[in-house]
């Protein structure tokens, strides 16, 4: 598989960063082709909600920065990993600023999907998604919200398959490795 890791954990977050390092090692040891981006090191401006990517330059954001690169990279891979500290049940600022810049990858037009209105896909095929949140310890409320958010993203980002998990700071490298391999397996196309 051709994989993309979007790391929304910064170096300052010691424990969460160690989890990132384990995942990074797992990917490097695997047979997969992997591209990895540390989002906190990138120049990604927040989305301005101007809709120019739909109307003025369809399919591409008018802000010429790394946000464009990440939106393009998303479409070039078979599977994408979203890694982020669970931030009040959502993503970190670092990951969210990248995710907000993905909207050029769908069309402005609407359709009814799963009894709700959503934007129609721009492309025929989208990457499968792996969502990984990190937390110091169990927090059922925030984990629930995080998983709901993942599922909402799945409706709008059109993967064929997805997997999701929370990794805790106290987990051993071995536990993280086992869980991560399972997440990868879940999105491998048969």
């Amino acid at each position, binding site marked *: 598989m051709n994989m993309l890791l979007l790391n929304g954990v910064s170096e300052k977050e010691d424990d969460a960063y160690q989890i990132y390092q384990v995942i990074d090692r797992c990917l490097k040891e695997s047979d997969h082709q992997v591209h990895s981006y540390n989002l906190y090191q990138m120049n990604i401006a*927040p989305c301005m909600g101007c809709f120019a990517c739909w109307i003025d330059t*369809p399919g591409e954001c008018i802000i010429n920065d790394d946000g464009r690169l990440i939106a393009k990279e998303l479409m070039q891979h078979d599977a994408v990993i979203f890694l982020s500290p669970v*931030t009040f049940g959502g993503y970190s600022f670092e990951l969210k600023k990248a*995710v907000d810049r993905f*909207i050029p990858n769908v*069309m*402005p037009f609407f359709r009814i999907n799963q009894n709700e209105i959503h934007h129609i896909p721009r492309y025929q095929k989208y990457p499968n998604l792996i969502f990984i949140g990190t937390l110091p310890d169990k927090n059922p409320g925030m984990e629930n919200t995080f998983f709901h958010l993942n599922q909402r993203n799945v409706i709008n980002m059109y993967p064929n398959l997805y997997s999701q998990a929370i990794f805790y700071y106290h987990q051993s490298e071995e536990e993280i490795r086992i869980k991560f391999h399972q997440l990868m397996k879940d999105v491998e196309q048969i």
Partner: protein
Amino acid sequence: MNPCPKKRVSLLVGSPKRKNSASATLGLYLCNQLDSQKFDYQEIHLRSALSDKQNINVSYWLNDILKSDVLIFSSPLYVDCLPSYVFQVFEKIYQERKKTRDPKEIQFLAIINSGFPESSQSQTALDICQHFAGESGMLWLGGLLLGAGFIVGGRDIRKMGWLFKNIKKSLDLSAAAINHGKVIPVEAFHIMGKPFLSKKLFCWIGNIGFKQMAKRNGTVRQLYDRPYEKEQMI
């Protein structure tokens, strides 16, 4: 006898738009319904505040937020959630309050509007606001969810027609609750969330609207472009 000091309300606007922002319009309407004898309010646009190049640690607006008695957060839905920089602000407020041994009592209310007609699409964003309030030791007053928020835009809510009467009623109920130091009534949540367009009609109007915008821009032929198609990778 000294009169009771007025409570400080900060309206935190999550939209990056400076003009015709539904988030600002909804929040300002609510603030203007508060009892002016009891409350003073100020408006803070989070995106502008963050981009003023000042160090967020010492910036005046962060101190203003921390000194508030009531925070009214009004924001659009961005990709199933809140706009990215809102997380930066939430994180900062949370960290500052965690540093303080006995943080000031703050009440928190959230209004989320989305571009989709179903207000329920914003429930996850509202849950995130509630987690933030709880983790930061604030009192959660509740939240309001509005679908098709762009219809509000920068319009005067007082002058909006009968079709939108629920928006006004919901905000009036919420203001009355804040005036009396109570949580937002369930009725305010329910009536704000009622759709005012059918799904099919919404799709039809929305799709025509985007096509017309493209026509004006001369980009109709490019609308379906796929610049990031895999084969085009160099």
